[in-house]
């Protein structure tokens, strides 16, 4: 049995002005998360150009779940207008995300404040 992923959307103000859309994940990030994550991403309104992924509520992430995050970054990259940042990962998963190279396509921040300051 895989634990479901919950995704909630909120907006915050970027330090540089303008709005940032935050997708906050809770539960596990695994192969079972595809619909939840890509569904939430596809449901964002067209104007969302600054996106932050909040992993604070997540404690288990496996490589199939990371592949879904990469899939989303690929789509964001294709859009040509969206930038995606990441925060709230534990030090272990910051290391894992860096090992697979995600940091090259999504800025990784410690927490929301740091992420908004850079956005």
């Amino acid at each position, binding site marked *: 049995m895989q634990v479901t992923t919950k995704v909630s959307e909120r907006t915050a103000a970027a330090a540089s002005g303008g709005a940032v859309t935050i997708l906050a994940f809770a539960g*596990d990030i695994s192969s*079972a998360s595809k619909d939840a994550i890509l569904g939430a991403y596809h449901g964002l309104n067209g104007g969302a150009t600054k996106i932050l992924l909040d992993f604070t509520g997540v404690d288990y992430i496996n*490589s199939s779940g990371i592949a879904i995050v*990469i899939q989303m970054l690929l789509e964001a990259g294709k859009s040509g207008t969206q930038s995606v940042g990441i925060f709230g990962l534990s*030090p*272990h998963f910051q290391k*894992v995300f860096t090992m*697979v*190279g995600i940091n*090259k396509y999504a800025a990784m921040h410690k927490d929301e404040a740091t992420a908004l300051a850079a956005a």
Partner: protein
Amino acid sequence: MKSGSSVQVRLPSELGFEKVAMSTAASMAALMGFSEDRIEDLKTAVAEACINAIEHGNQLNNGLSVGVVLSTSDDELVVKVIDDGTGVRNAPHAPDIDRKMHGDEDPRGMGMFLIQALVDEAEWHQGPPGKSFVRLVIRLDKESQ
């Protein structure tokens, strides 16, 4: 813990149960005195090995189970994850994030790479059914990776 103690676990071939093996391994490593960092590394490696055994080795077949054998010696914890498949032919390779981001490489395919990157030793053995396994080692004297 006496050197040579071992714990065995059998899991159903069902995704999600890798988390049970992960907890078992984590608590065994904690008993041995591994640091939290190393325990996190081990947890991810054990989870990925179990997922592969469940998905690829046992092909999600409910009638098959995954074996996990955790053995301690003075300074290392050895974890074998055994499935009923014919084993892995390919060597782990580092993901190429640029190719993945351009759709030229499957976004998946990072499990074996992570396993090898996170533990001190990882070896894949092909065997007859019920004898294919990956063997992971973490060492107490190697607290940083």
